[in-house]
């Protein structure tokens, strides 16, 4: 097995899918000759040609709309939106068609497609590039939403998304595209959608994170361990459907939960998780659930980015709060 970065895991996943499934096409802006602005599609155009890896006009609604039509007509399109901050022109296509076509056609046209979008901050990107609005999609019935946080998961979740009979929004944490390497299985490798990953076992408090917040939670857990607090870290991986079983089992064991996400706090996915924990594990809880999140402000330009994104310090403070409640 070769060691790869997260973005190379995505590239490997796309290459595997294109190589093994003639129905898969990749389309989007700059995905062809340029290999994608983050190089997710590097080398694919050369290998699979212009009809499988398609540079499109700059038109998000057009890209997603075309992908819906392709899916209706038997292809398995993987559409790339260059940044999540630019997904909004396609939002109508996603919400009114991608998400509902299966229901509206009573299963006849399931719109089995994948929409990939880099998301979140931390790379000093220009204004409007760093949104983390995963809740829009989690809140939309009919969609599945996944976020990898490791190179192996990046490939495994992508291939699972491509094979999935339902439409999947595949969000890529830009911050950790190249931050570390790990071994990525060769060939077709799937990570099941709907299953969380236990990153670290612990007894005192459960830290729940996804995407680029997973390594931040790990750092916080490491610091807490030095102070004698044992944190269990869960990487949610699949934002919808949620691995409720893993979350509830963990908080029943630890009695405490801290949820970490980059998105603004109000109506972020943390709110849903907190409610779910409250509904299903209230009697096991030693303290109210804490949330460490972005603030309810527009994602700032990068000069203030580090003040907006949760870091280990804020997580440790939240852990202290639930421990000493």
């Amino acid at each position: 097995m070769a060691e790869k970065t997260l973005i190379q895991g995505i590239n490997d996943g796309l290459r595997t899918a294109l190589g093994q499934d003639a129905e898969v096409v990749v389309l989007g802006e700059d995905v062809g000759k340029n290999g994608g602005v983050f190089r997710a599609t590097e080398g694919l155009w050369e290998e699979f040609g212009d009809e499988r890896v398609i540079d499109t006009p700059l038109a998000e609604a057009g890209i997603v709309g075309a992908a819906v039509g392709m899916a209706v007509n038997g292809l398995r399109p993987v559409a790339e939106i260059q940044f999540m901050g630019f997904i909004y022109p396609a939002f109508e296509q996603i919400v009114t068609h991608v998400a509902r076509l299966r229901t509206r056609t009573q299963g006849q046209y399931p719109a089995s497609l994948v929409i990939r979008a880099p998301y979140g901050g931390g790379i000093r990107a220009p204004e409007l590039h760093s949104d983390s609005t995963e809740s829009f999609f989690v809140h939309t019935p009919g969609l599945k939403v996944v976020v990898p946080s490791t190179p192996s998961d990046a490939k495994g979740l992508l291939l699972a998304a491509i094979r999935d009979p339902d439409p999947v929004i595949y969000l890529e944490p830009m911050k950790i595209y190249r931050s570390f390497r790990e071994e990525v299985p060769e060939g077709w490798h799937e990570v099941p959608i709907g299953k969380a990953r236990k990153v670290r076992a612990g007894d005192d408090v459960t830290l729940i994170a996804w995407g680029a917040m997973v390594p931040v939670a790990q750092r916080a857990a490491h610091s807490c361990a030095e102070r004698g607090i044992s944190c269990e870290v869960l990487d949610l991986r699949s934002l919808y459907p949620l691995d409720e079983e893993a979350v509830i089992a963990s908080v029943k064991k630890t009695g405490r939960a801290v949820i970490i996400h980059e998105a603004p706090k109000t109506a972020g996915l943390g709110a849903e998780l907190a409610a779910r924990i409250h509904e299903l594990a209230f009697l096991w809880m030693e303290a109210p659930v804490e949330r460490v999140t972005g603030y309810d402000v527009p994602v700032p330009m990068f000069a203030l980015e580090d003040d907006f994104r949760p870091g280990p310090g804020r997580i440790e403070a939240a852990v202290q709060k639930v421990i000493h409640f």
Partner: protein
Amino acid sequence: MLKLMDRVDRQYILPDGKLSPEGRQAWGKLPKERKLDFHRWMVQVRTFDRRAVILQRQGRIGTYAPLEGQEAAQVGSALALSQEDWIFPSYREHGVAMIAGMPLSQILLYWMGRVEGNLAPPGVRLLPPYVPIATQMPQAMGAAWASRLKRESAISVAYFGDGATSEGDFHEACNFAGVFRLPVIFFCQNNHYAISVPFTRQSAVPTVAERAAAYNIRGIRVDGNDVLAVYTAMEEAVTCARDGKGATLIEAVTYRKGSHTTADDAARYREPAEVGEWVRNRDPIPRLEKLLQAEGLLTEAEIREWEEHCAERVEQAVKEAESSPAPPADHLFAHVYETPPPELRRQQAELLREGKRDG
């Protein structure tokens, strides 16, 4: 607006039922059965439409989007398609749907608020009504693209109204179609009003068809109340698409005789003189009837007989739709995902446990 209507690229059957010189040529090439099909379908569509408006008034179906006046545009275009072609309609294409093979009872079921009404019979490549404006256009383009990539001869058609041409999706779809020379037809029924807003407020260029030039695709502006001209224009566009010559934007200039939907009152925004002109002088059905009668292909008695037959078919469809058993409440959960996630299964169980409706 009436003057504008008179500037079309094609008008074959004139409002008085006479054929133009080009029309005579086109008419001469058609077999008798096709000529009669035009009439049979237009009458069937109108009969259905009028009955549906009454059913809405009686509270037997929900809000309905009438199409009376647009029969020639729908029938002429749909008859030029073959069974393999993909149709992406708006919410007003009941005529197109019928010709594609959608049972009348299914169409009624949709307007009764039943999602099962979207279900096309096997082999009918008709998508459900598209309620948001212009969103079907990129999808038709994508389906056409897939046909091309799969080396299949099917083409795709998106139906939409004049209001849709103001949307970004219209531009994006036309632009992709032009760039990739896709086998798609964009069929605009310019019925002059997007609910209440006239076409002059929709577009600073006076016609839809001329916009095709901006995308390097073919543009044809046809009298949309002339079934023969529409059919011929559509046949040409279909042939071009199948032959790899790319997309066509057809503007069928027509008029909806009634309101936007049964919830709208068109008298608030349209002049009676304008409506009168279209209703009295430009109706698509009488002009074809005059022609067919003059050619000895149809008698007054046969027209009445066919009208009665259509009315019976519609009544039969109403009976079928109204006797369709109501779905159980947990049908809400059907087909949201191929396999419902645990949370959804729990919500479904909760609804079933509660047992009865809470509304």
